[in-house]
């Protein structure tokens, strides 16, 4: 059983950047665990993506859109007051919240919509949690005049009303999902059911670096622009690579986008921050798949999952709708097992408090998702020397979270 035991942590690897293998595995994790109806499509997608990747005109088109539509490169901003306040590492924010649509999600959507068009697909479906991915999908579909249906958990529809309005305005058909707890995993189940029913014309635009191969690798590639820019910008500003990287993890697309170009720079310390919710010791009270879960198979890939002892998936909890997914991208699962990346968890309260700190000190309202990364920076930075260059991926802006934050802080809007 070639893949039943994990050898990835044992051997010293020459490179952390060559995965996945030709069957889509990162060590034990990843793969293509889908129903037969979808299998031919997954294989077709893999071929189409390989061809596109090798085609310079495809990359040129993405580059053009990144600059003129998404507004890239996003700035690498020196957060001087946070730095002074924390009294340790020199803190930089990678400002992906300044992208068009307000988060890093657009990076992936531009790449995949171009691929869908190349494949001759005429209808787009997607799942969304916080609505950031849904908004980015609705945006690129509007731009290319393609019909689009977004599956969103009914609970999330309720707590992310500004993004719901944006999607509708952009012309997307929004399908609230009531099965399960009505959150992101249920939305993904419904999107998969739609896809299996409409295989002939439909492209499933997955929003995170998870799902069956080739999605985890493809989404990572489209998001790697974050890390590539950070590298160049840091070299230009400081003349050397950063020492520390920090990013939040739900499915993990913004994080793998920042981390991947640095994986083989062994001197760069890398931290992924999961949603600790009410605390890791509270059963079903967090969404930290890696720091509080076990390996399993869901939504087309093997990865760390929140599940009970009988393999039933738990819903998880986070104050952030973008992080409460019971799984995580398989490349992160692999990077955890081989020790290249350190994964930690931050609670709802710590994230809320970090959001306020950042807002007051830097005049930037971060989304609740990167507020988890910020909370870890607040813990970590004081333990590091003043010459330590730290980059945190500020992957989304907080406008969408105003209602949630106000409610938790007892503010009247």
């Amino acid at each position, binding site marked *: *059983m070639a893949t039943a035991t994990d050898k990835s942590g044992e051997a010293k690897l020459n490179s952390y950047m060559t995965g996945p293998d030709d069957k889509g595995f990162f060590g034990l994790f990843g793969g293509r665990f889908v129903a037969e109806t979808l299998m031919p499509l997954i294989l077709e997608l893999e071929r189409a993506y390989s061809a596109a990747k090798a085609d310079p005109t495809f990359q040129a088109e993405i580059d053009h859109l990144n600059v003129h539509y998404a507004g890239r490169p996003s700035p690498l901003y020196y957060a001087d007051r946070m730095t002074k306040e924390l009294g340790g590492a020199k803190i930089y924010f990678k400002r992906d919240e300044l992208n068009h649509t307000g988060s890093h999600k657009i990076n992936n959507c531009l790449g995949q919509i171009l691929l869908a068009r190349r494949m001759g697909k005429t209808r787009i479906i997607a799942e969304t949690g916080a609505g950031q991915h849904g908004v980015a999908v609705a945006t690129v579909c509007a731009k290319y005049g393609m019909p689009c249906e977004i599956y969103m958990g009914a609970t999330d529809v309720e707590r992310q009303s500004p993004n719901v309005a944006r999607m509708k305005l952009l012309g997307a058909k929004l399908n609230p999902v009531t099965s399960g707890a009505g959150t992101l995993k249920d939305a993904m189940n419904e999107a998969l059911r739609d896809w299996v029913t409409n295989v002939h014309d439909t492209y499933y635009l997955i929003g995170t670096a998870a799902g069956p191969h080739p999605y985890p690798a493809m989404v990572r590639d489209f998001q790697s622009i974050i890390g590539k820019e950070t590298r160049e910008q840091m070299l230009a500003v400081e003349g050397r690579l950063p020492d520390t990287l920090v990013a939040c993890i739900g499915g993990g697309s913004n994080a793998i986008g920042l981390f991947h170009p640095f994986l083989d720079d062994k001197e760069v310390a890398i931290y992924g921050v999961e949603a600790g919710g009410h605390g890791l010791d509270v059963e079903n009270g967090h969404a930290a798949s890696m720091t509080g879960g076990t390996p399993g198979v869901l939504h087309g890939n093997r990865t760390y999952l929140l599940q009970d002892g009988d393999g039933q998936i738990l819903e998880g909890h986070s104050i952030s709708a973008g992080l409460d997914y019971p799984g995580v991208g398989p490349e992160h699962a692999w990077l955890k097992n081989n020790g290249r990346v350190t994964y930690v968890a931050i609670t709802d309260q710590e994230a809320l408090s970090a959001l306020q700190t950042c807002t007051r000190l830097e005049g930037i309202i971060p989304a609740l998702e990167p507020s988890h990364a910020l909370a870890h920076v607040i813990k970590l930075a004081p333990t590091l020397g003043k010459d330590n260059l730290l980059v945190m991926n500020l992957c989304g802006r907080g406008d969408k979270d105003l209602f949630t934050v106000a409610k938790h802080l007892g503010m009247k809007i």
Partner: protein
Amino acid sequence: MTATSRIEARFAQLKKQNRKALVTFISAGDPDLETSAAILAGLPQAGADIIEVGMPFSDPMADGPAIQAASLRALQGGQTMVKTLAMVREFRAGDSETPIVLMGYYNPIYVYGHERFIVDAKAAGVDGLIVVDVPPEADDELCIPAVAAGLNFIRLATPTTDANRLPTVLKNTSGFVYYVSITGITGAAAPVVNDVHQQVTRIKGQTELPVVVGFGVKTGAQARAIAEGADGVVVGSALVGEIEKSLKQDGKAGPDTVSRVLATVKELATALKS
């Protein structure tokens, strides 16, 4: 090849009688373990030739609303893999001939442990496995060890399984081939009979194995029409739908839950024979 499996013996017997197989699906533990066991025990007498027992999963991605609800009812009733295997063991003590196929998704098996699962399933009297989300590309993990242990591994072929891919799907399949009649989820749109016949003929041209057809088969007349040219039909959503209709207000089994399901199976079996 090892000794004839119960599934092979059943198809040989059906062929002799010039009959099509009625394959029935229920979710283990739906709506509760006792009722589910009573339904299972009554199925052969009602006319089920082969029984698929669903291993409930929290996230049944390939299933429509009826089987989603059945899974959920079972899980809410406290169903576990251990209980599902025990239910099969109990059935087997009273019936040594009717084949039992466990059907479901990979994660509950993966978490139970592949090796332990294969040993325990075999010991319980399980004859075959259908695991929706383990494609032939991952045969090393579950299919090959299961077949080595004497279980049949039944693969789904679908309308998207083209001529290039069909040999890959058929390669390690045993017992029978399950043709999924539609691109879609269980219990959805009714299949187009002529399309199904064409596809079944195509598959039969590539394998000696019996081919049964499922997804969207609801009525006796439909079952008879679909079975034409195939070796049997699977009925699932229609049966768990009967369970749902029979429940009391509080969601618990009603007085006629068992009889209602078995009566439906009887109707289907009669229609299939006529």
